[in-house]
């Protein structure tokens, strides 16, 4: 079993999505997609947040600003070289609703299909993930009208409890970055571990 913790507003989560799907397909591992909210720490890629300041900064503040600028540039560089359209986020997004939609899709074993539809549109700035209407429309596309029409009621009933359970699981595991992968109790942050994960899942790794 592979558990994948993903913040949809994390550009690195988006960059990891297709290669994570390929890993799942190659290994045949059963995967769980678990939505998390990392807040601003996971969304370094905001317009105008380049960390530059005319004011004197402490060494620590300079370090954090340099890190933020570099990570932003690096994500854009990889997205560009892989042919992915990405538009810098214009603000921090509330993710409770979209995370509920992912958990809702999971009930029909369709979290991956839902994310495949959602992530490119969100990162092209074509989807309002705070809009129940927009998310329901997307769920209709993925699940069909009959299943998707229950989403508004779900958000106000079971969705609260089920999302809280996912959040509690992420807190228990110690998720501080996205994407995060959990295999046999071992936690990995970042898509750079995919080769290692594949080796672990196929029994081809030295521990």
């Amino acid at each position, binding site marked *: 079993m592979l558990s994948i913790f993903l913040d949809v507003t994390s550009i690195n989560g988006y960059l990891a999505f297709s290669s994570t799907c390929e890993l799942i397909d190659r290994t045949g591992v059963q995967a769980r997609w678990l939505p998390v909210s990392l807040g601003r720490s996971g969304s370094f890629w905001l317009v105008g947040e380049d960390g530059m300041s005319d004011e004197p900064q402490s060494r620590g503040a300079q370090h954090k600003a340099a890190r933020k600028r570099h990570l932003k540039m690096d994500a854009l560089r990889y997205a560009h*070289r*892989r042919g992915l359209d990405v538009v810098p986020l214009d603000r921090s997004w509330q993710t409770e609703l979209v995370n509920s939609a992912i958990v809702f899709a999971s009930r029909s074993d369709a979290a991956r299909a839902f994310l495949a539809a959602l992530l490119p549109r969100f990162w092209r700035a074509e989807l309002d993930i705070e809009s129940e209407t927009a998310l329901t429309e997307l769920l209709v596309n993925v699940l069909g009208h009959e299943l998707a029409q229950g989403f508004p009621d779900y958000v106000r009933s079971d969705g609260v409890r089920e999302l809280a359970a996912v959040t509690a699981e992420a807190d228990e595991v110690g998720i*501080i970055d996205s994407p995060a992968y959990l295999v046999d109790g071992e936690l990995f942050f970042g898509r750079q571990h995919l*080769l*290692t994960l594949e080796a672990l899942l196929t029994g081809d790794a030295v521990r």
Partner: protein
Amino acid sequence: MSGEQLALSSDAPLIVYIDYKSPYAYLAIGPTYHLLDELAIEADWRPLTLDIVSYAGSAKTDGKGQVLKSERSPKQWQSVKYAYRDCKRYARARGLELLGTTKIWDSSLAGIGLLWCKQYGQQVTRRYTELTYQRFWIRELDIEDASVVSAVVNEAGAPVEGFADFLMGDGRAQHDALQEPLLDCDIYGVPTFVIPASGDAPAEVFFGREHLPMVRWLLTGQPGPAPDVAYERLGADY
């Protein structure tokens, strides 16, 4: 030469910034040598002495994991603990011993030792780096002790006559001048790989050994589709 030119320019095709107190930089050494040997090129190795306290808080332990003193937030601890777990699993798979440090070290003397050894060729530089990393990470090397660093320089095959003066004088000045422009060039951690500007192509900066596939792709003329980030497979023979 401007600070940016100093940080991003070199006669070598690749600049590698390292710090001996970073386990991530330690783990990058083998894969980097592997790449350099495969491409038959040499790198311009440079010290980047991390000011860890400024961005990750300070801490001191008793060597058995018991925290004696800490100015870190819970999130900083969580991040630091994950980083060590992550490094240790890759080190273990490669047969490297990696014991957590008991304090935040000032690694500038060891970095100046690197600058000294560079004057005596790549073989000496590699030997110095290997000895320093191996011994520091089993807690058998006091990198804040000039006489200890000098002994490693000697063992690596570099002369030690003049090294003490270098540590206090030219070497310190070179080291400090190298650190000055780094943050403005968005170089903030180790290992950092820089492919210097060439023709119309600007310099490219990469932080972390997971970028070695991309570094290799760029150094070999960008054959085929661009690779994604990737660590070496657990158990890779580096």
